[in-house]
C-alpha cells in the first residue's frame, strides 16, 4: 500500500500526512486486536505466561530492541538531512536504517529457528503434549504477533528501498521539499517509527515478564 500512498499526485503536504497518520491508526488497531488477546489471556493464565516466557531468549530480544531503536534514529536523521537539502547524507542514513532492518530480521530468524527446532511452534505435538493451555496460547500469540510485526519490518524495508531510489533520482540542485520527496520520506518514516513502537511493546511483554 505504501508506494501508492506516497506517490499520489496531490501536492497537499498536510493532507498527505493526515492520510498517513490515519493509515497508521488502522495499523495500531490491527495490532490492538492481538494485544487485546494477549491481555485477556495473560490475565487468565498469569502463571503459564510467566513460565513460558522463560523459553524465550531475552538477550536476543534486547539486542533487537536496541537495533530497532537505532534504526528509528537513523530514519529521523535521514528525514532531517533531506529537509536540509542534503540528499547524499539522507541516502546514507536510509541505508543504515535498511541495514538495521536486515539485522533485526536475521536475529528474528535465528530465534524462530531455534524455537521450531525444539518443537515449539503452533500445533506441534510437543507443544500439545508437554505444555499447559496458557503456555500454548503464549507461544501462539508470540508467533502471531512477532510474525505480523516481522511482516511489517519487511514491508517497511521495501518501502525504504523505494524511498532511497526516489532520493537517488532527485535532480541536482532541486529543492526536495518542492518536488514532494520530503512528504514521501516523512510518511515512510512515520511508518517505520510505528513498526519500532510496536516492538517497544512486544519486547517487555514477551521477553521480560518471567
Amino acid at each position, binding site marked *: 500500500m505504501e508506494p501508492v500512498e506516497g506517490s499520489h499526485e496531490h501536492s497537499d503536504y498536510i493532507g498527505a500526512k493526515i492520510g498517513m497518520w490515519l493509515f497508521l491508526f488502522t495499523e495500531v*488497531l490491527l495490532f490492538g486486536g492481538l494485544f487485546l488477546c494477549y491481555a485477556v489471556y*495473560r490475565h487468565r493464565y498469569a502463571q503459564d505466561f510467566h513460565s513460558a516466557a522463560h523459553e524465550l531468549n531475552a538477550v536476543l530480544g534486547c539486542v533487537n530492541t536496541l537495533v530497532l*531503536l537505532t534504526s*528509528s*534514529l537513523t530514519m529521523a536523521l535521514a528525514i*532531517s538531512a533531506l529537509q536540509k537539502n542534503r540528499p547524499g547524507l539522507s541516502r546514507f542514513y536510509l541505508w543504515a536504517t535498511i541495514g538495521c532492518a536486515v539485522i533485526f530480521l536475521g536475529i528474528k530468524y535465528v530465534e524462530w529457528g531455534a524455537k521450531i527446532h525444539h518443537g515449539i511452534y503452533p500445533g506441534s505435538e510437543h507443544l500439545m503434549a508437554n505444555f499447559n493451555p496458557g503456555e500454548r496460547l503464549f507461544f501462539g500469540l508470540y508467533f502471531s504477533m512477532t510474525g505480523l510485526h516481522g511482516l511489517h519490518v519487511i514491508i517497511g524495508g521495501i518501502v525504504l528501498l523505494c524511498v532511497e531510489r526516489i532520493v537517488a533520482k532527485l535532480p541536482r540542485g532541486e529543492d526536495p521539499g518542492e518536488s514532494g520527496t520530503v512528504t514521501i520520506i516523512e510518511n515512510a518514516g512515520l511508518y517505520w517509527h510505528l513498526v519500532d513502537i510496536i516492538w*517497544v511493546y512486544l519486547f*517487555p511483554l514477551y521477553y521480560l*515478564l518471567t
Partner: protein
Amino acid sequence: MKDVMETTAEKPHASPYGTYILVWLCLMGLTGLTVAVSGVHLGNWNAAGAVAIASTKAAVVIWYFMHLRYDKSIFRWMVLVMIITLGIILGLTFIDSTVRGPF
C-alpha cells in the same frame, strides 16, 4: 484549490541532529531501565511497570521522531482519539473477561 491550501506555515519542520541523538540516548536508557526493573520481583506490578516504560518510550518516539511536537495541533487531536478508542476497546472487554473467571 490546492494553491489556497498551501501556506508557508504548513512547510515541513527540520530538527537539529543533536535533538535526535539525545532522544535516542534517552530511549536506550529506558530500555536499560525496563530490563533492570524486570529483575525485581513485584508480582503484578512487573507487567504494569513494563507497559508504563514502553508507553513512555512510545510517547518519546511519537513526540520527537514522529514530529508530533512540531506538527499542527490537529495531529495531536487525532492521535488522542485513536488512543481513547483503543482504551475503550481494551477496557470494555476487560469488564467481561476479568469478572468472568475461568470458563
